[in-house]
């Protein structure tokens, strides 16, 4: 076959270009150790995410020094956690200078989990778990969006990642609150809040109690991966109650991130008794987030 000289030159140049591409990309992915989305995770039953050890426990979890796992459910048409702009779920909150591994799966159709303007971008396929490890070195916010068409509400599927300064990041949650169900007007009541610290370091929590129109705050030192309690003593006589029959209270811990909004606070109410119904003793009730928590 007769190949023109220029054609030969061109052919050689083209081959060099191609090989050059392959070499740079191989170096980029293997040499520099940039991980791709792959098949390293086990498959999952999309109809039973709640039973899965990871996706039964959504949200941020610390796994090591500066290392966190975030378990996220991408479904039509939200990220849980993540979709906070419209108040549906908590945002994803992680500390600065952390290495975060995101685990994402879907119970319905194919979505994407894409951190806007970055290469942290993956498809989310029902039955599969997508894993990405990302370093967050700067305190700022990132948008998340779904860029794989997933149905009529696809354009509304968004979320945020808040990267906060390290000293503002905590993994506290309110594990339970002991408060009386009723009290004599004018008496002192004791409200004891138990706070969990899921972080791998001890941390001091600012626990606040809102009761009536007043707010009280206690500092509480909580060891790594354990819980501690603090008691607020409140003089109901000093509260400006007007003619209320119930006093509402809410205990909040300055939370870093937990899967759901409910974990960061608990609330309940105390029935006020006047002198004429003195028959009942005040009984203590274990208000934890599941039975006392409606906010």
């Amino acid at each position, binding site marked *: 076959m007769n190949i023109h000289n220029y054609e030969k030159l061109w052919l050689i140049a083209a081959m060099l270009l191609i090989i050059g591409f392959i070499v740079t990309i191989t170096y980029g992915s293997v040499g520099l150790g940039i991980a791709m989305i792959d098949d390293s995770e086990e498959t999952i039953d999309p109809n039973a995410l709640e039973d899965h050890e990871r996706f039964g426990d959504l949200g941020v979890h610390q796994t090591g020094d500066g290392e966190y796992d975030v378990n996220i459910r991408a479904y039509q048409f939200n990220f849980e956690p993540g979709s906070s702009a419209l108040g549906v779920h908590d945002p994803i909150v992680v500390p600065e200078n952390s290495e975060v591994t995101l685990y994402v799966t879907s119970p319905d159709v194919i979505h994407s989990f894409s951190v806007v303007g970055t290469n942290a971008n993956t*498809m989310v396929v*029902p039955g599969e778990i997508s894993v990405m490890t990302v370093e967050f070195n700067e305190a700022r916010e990132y948008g998340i969006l779904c860029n794989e068409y997933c149905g009529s509400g696809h354009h509304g599927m968004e979320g945020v990642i808040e990267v906060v300064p390290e000293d503002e990041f905590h993994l506290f949650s309110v594990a339970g609150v002991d408060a009386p169900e009723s009290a004599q007007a004018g008496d002192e009541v004791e409200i004891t809040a138990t706070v969990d610290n899921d972080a791998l370091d001890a941390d001091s929590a600012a626990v606040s109690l809102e009761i009536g129109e007043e707010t009280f705050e206690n500092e509480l030192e909580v060891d790594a991966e354990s819980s501690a309690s603090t008691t607020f003593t409140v003089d109901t006589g000093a509260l400006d109650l007007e003619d209320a029959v119930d006093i509402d209270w809410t205990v909040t811990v300055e939370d870093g991130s937990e899967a759901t909004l409910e974990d960061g606070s608990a609330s309940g109410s105390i029935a006020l008794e006047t002198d004429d119904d003195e028959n009942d003793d005040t009984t203590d009730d274990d208000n934890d987030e599941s039975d006392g928590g409606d906010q």
Partner: protein
Amino acid sequence: MSAYIDQFPEEAKVIRSAFYASFFALALGAAFGLIQTLHRTDFVRIIPAEMYYTVLTAHGVLMVVTFTIFFLVAIFTWAVTTSLDRGVEDIRFTWSWYGLMTLGTAFAAIAILAGFTDRTEISADVLFTFYAPLQAHPMFYVGLVLFVIGTWLAGADWFRSWWAWKQENPDKRIPLPTFMVLTTMIMWYLATLGVATSIIAFLLPWSLGLIDTVNPTLTRTLFWFWGHPVVYFWLMPAYMMWYIMLPKFSGGRLFSDPLARVVFVLFLLLSTPVGIHHQYLDPGIAEGFKFIAMTNTMFLLLPSLLTAFTVVASMEHGARQRGGEGYFGWLGALPWRDPVFTGMALAGLMFAAGGFSGMINAGMNINYLVHNSLWVPGHFHLTVGTAVALTFMAVSYYFIPQVTGRRLASKQIALVQVVMWFVGMTFMSNAMHRGGLLGMPRRTAEPEYAGFQFETAIGTVGELNAQIALGGVLLTLSTLLFIVNMSITALNDRDDDLPSNTIPEPLSGPNEAPLVLDNLKLWTAIAVVLVIFAYSLPLASIVERGGLFGPGGDAFPMFLELADSFGFALVGETLSAMVSSLLETLRTVV
């Protein structure tokens, strides 16, 4: 020497009909394109956001399935009959595949357009990729199957012509245009196995309720098994035009016949084992498989780079024949006033830009930045949306007079049209690429978010949107000029001195091409082996992970009792519902 219609009057009718079907799809597709551009940039929103996806499905299917493929079966029929200098073996067979393709299109289109009305349960808002568990009405899948079978029969028609010709010309080389058609069709047969399996074995039975679930990764992978080579199914007819017609219109001859054959063989071999490059971001597929797909993809650049050389060399030859001189001075001697030439040359130029952004897509790690962003439609509006579409429109100015015998209505308007497309696409595609880098998603009705904003380094999001909208409007106007020009041409007077239907001989002819190049069996065998290498392990591992029918889960949206509601009776009902809803929409708009 005479025009095509005088040589092959019967074939000319089929070709004409295929061109008209293709133009019809183009016109409708452009109207939807305009709605999309104006909607997503928030200039004009005449539809509710959910309906955007019905529009987008229609735009995608009409443009890249109907417009392109009807056009290419027309020019392939022209190429085979012209280069073998014999009519088709049985014109009824030719009409039958044309009929099947039309019927398939009608089915799919009705299923999609029914999404505009609530008066029927039918819809197919699944985009042209129809990823499960998103589900379309069975009519959509049936339509696609009929369409593909139509193209298979078309290929059979051309093979039949070639076999018959070979009996009479046992010692001749396959003429280059026929060679191009046959290699392209072998690639197509191989590639469509993927999508046919996906639809016939899984999606259609699933939509009919015969099976409960499918494996989303499996059907998606089978889609891309076809989804990449289909790109070359669009592109190869355009390449064919660049190889055999562009030299003619620049006043010269093709540089080298053997190299053209090499290029088409390379496409046959390499087009299919690369589809996984669309799945770099998919969980459940090992990195190694993605890597193999990427390496193959890089080698697939080779035939395109070779084509770039040949095209430029042939144009230069043509220009020098016309008296052009100097290092770059010859460019001025090209027939820039001819819309056929200018359209093709501009299409080629845009393809160079598209090839560049394609190389970026192909890189595994950079892909993570741009995947599914607006960058991607930016890219393929340069490739299929211009390299292919503009070449097709440009050569129509030559072909329509050839197959109708009518005079082209206006050469000036034609010239304005091709330039306007180029300018419009420059705006739209450039801004789409830039938007993609900011993270703007594709396939999104209203990419405005409550929780964050896109950060621009230069310019503003508003300016990008304005460019996209401006580009989209110019493109739509250009399409309108094209359609009007073609319609008037089709009704114009007879042109008695049409140029004769000839293809100039290449400078270095087929006899310099090694015989082995014409051994289609050998190339087919190698292509099959490469596909087996690239796909058997990934497919096995996908099935092993997720099962043949997937891990369970529901279909979206859910259809009830589909099996009985599917049938011909519904077609009439759907049509009437569509018409009434169209009227309603018109009334609210006006």
